[in-house]
């Protein structure tokens, strides 16, 4: 790299500070709102930092007292975990065999291209028939239905990831195991799958984050407490008549915490997954 002049160094550090501020400020403000007393948030001029930290909203929203604001958040939290968990498991179960098949037998690759092309479909193109069918069979307001519908988003993406992952594992390793007398199932179990584990882990992370993030289908297909995920619960709180904006912020922090923690802890895997497709083209 080129030697930096003092002026360039100062400029670079200032720009980095600016970028850091842009990244942190909105998220930090969400957190500050969640722990500021309500009076501070409605003060003019605005009270930017609370004199006394108020954690009570977290206790309120995470309580399980029936018919409280807390019950709506805790049940939707459980629903989000269930829906995202089930959809992720199913998406991986479909993606691993399909991804391997396409990777090793390119002649069937066009079918995967067709699956990936569905990424262009706006969810509104599928929503009306899906709604009518779920309503007809009494399957609205069910975490199972929602997980099934989420496969429209998750499965194409995980299959594409798994296919690229298997592409990176040389066929020769599998051939060698076969020559040593292993059958296909043994080869996959002992040789291929362990090597594909990092890709599977990346696919799990992405699938979970995608499902956790989903809002449109959830808004359409769930209206009862027993199925509403967090995204819909937050929209309810934000759209309702809450006088305390700190409560909205607290719900936001609770919903953001799992993906943000996953993002910060697993960033290496996530960034390589995000950038690989782009760089390899």
């Amino acid at each position: 790299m080129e030697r930096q002049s003092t002026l360039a160094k100062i400029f670079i550090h200032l720009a980095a500070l600016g970028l850091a501020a842009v990244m942190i400020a909105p998220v930090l403000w969400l957190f500050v709102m969640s722990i500021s007393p309500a009076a501070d948030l409605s003060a003019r001029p605005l009270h930017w930092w609370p004199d006394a930290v108020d954690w009570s909203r977290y206790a309120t929203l995470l309580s399980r007292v029936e018919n409280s604001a807390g019950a709506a958040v805790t049940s939707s939290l459980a629903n989000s975990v269930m829906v995202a968990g089930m959809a992720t498991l199913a998406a991986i179960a479909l993606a691993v065999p399909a991804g391997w098949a396409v990777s090793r037998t390119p002649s069937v690759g066009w079918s995967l291209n067709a699956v990936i092309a569905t990424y262009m479909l706006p969810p509104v193109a599928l929503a009306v028939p899906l709604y009518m069918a779920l309503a007809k069979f009494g399957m609205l307001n069910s975490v199972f239905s929602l997980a099934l519908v989420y496969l429209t988003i998750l499965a194409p993406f995980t299959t594409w990831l798994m296919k690229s992952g298997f592409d990176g594992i040389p066929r020769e390793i599998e051939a060698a195991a076969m020559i040593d007398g292993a059958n296909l199932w043994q080869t996959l179990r002992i040789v291929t799958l362990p090597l594909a584990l990092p890709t599977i882990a990346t696919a799990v992370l992405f699938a979970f984050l995608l499902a956790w993030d989903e809002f449109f289908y959830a808004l359409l297909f769930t209206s009862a407490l027993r199925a509403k995920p967090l995204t819909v619960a937050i929209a309810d709180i934000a759209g309702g008549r809450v006088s305390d904006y700190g409560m909205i912020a607290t719900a936001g922090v609770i919903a953001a915490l799992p993906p943000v923690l996953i993002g910060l802890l697993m960033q290496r895997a996530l960034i390589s997954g995000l950038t690989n497709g782009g760089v390899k083209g």
Partner: protein
Amino acid sequence: MSSTWLTTRAWLLMLPLLAVMIGVIGWPLAETVRLSFTDAKLVGTGGTYVGFANYTKMLSSAAFQKTFWTTLWFALASVTIEMVAGVLAALLLNQRFYGRTMLRALMILPWALPTVVNATLWRLIYNPEYGAANAALVQTGVIDAYRSWLGEPGSAMWAIILADAWKNFPLVALIALAALQAVPRDTIAASLVDGAGAFRRFRYVMLPHLAGPLMVALVLRTIEAFKVFDIIWIMTRGGPANTTRTLSILVYQEGFSFQRAGSGASLALIVTLIVSVLALAYGGLLRKTAGSAM
């Protein structure tokens, strides 16, 4: 092993995926096509065949035409800001400075924040009475009085574009950064020896490596922007005076709020067609870029 058996085996392994995809994507899509030629309601009877009536009605409606331009404007503005800010951030992150590793890690923060939380957060920031945007701008003397950023037709779309760009430009930055790091050090060293300035170095050494990955990011972001629903629904629901109503919001209103499944379906297919044409055009461009960059 014969190649017939290998192909059969591949199909068998793909069968579960394909069966599910046909069930949750193929069938609903076919059904949307069928519904688009009927006057079906969301609840109740199946409706009768009406030919292209829904399509002509939707395409000629003022609401659709206005919404189309609104969507195009949202996509153009947000994607342009994201690409420019993303590349600038990547160039910065590719320099040496204290805390570089930490700043790179921070870039994942907006990306990881759920869209709904991001939209809610910015709605609070733009709040007309208590929002941080008003407080900050008034306290620093930039504006005199609190404004309703999301309530005024002149500013609502810009406010949403800013919120969307904040969440999405880090993804572009991370993709561009990975591409920059793939530029061979020798090439950079050679360009320095040859006395290339910063701009020429960017244009002739960095940009050829960036072009492919950036095109991919551009395609993905544009398609996403054209399908946008969540952030707008949470922040304005398409208001004020429909100035932020995008195509997906319009389909939602037609198909679900007004329960007109038939015309909603035809509108959804029009949107799908627009996105497909866009993707195909980009696909051609993508192949051209990939060809010329190498």
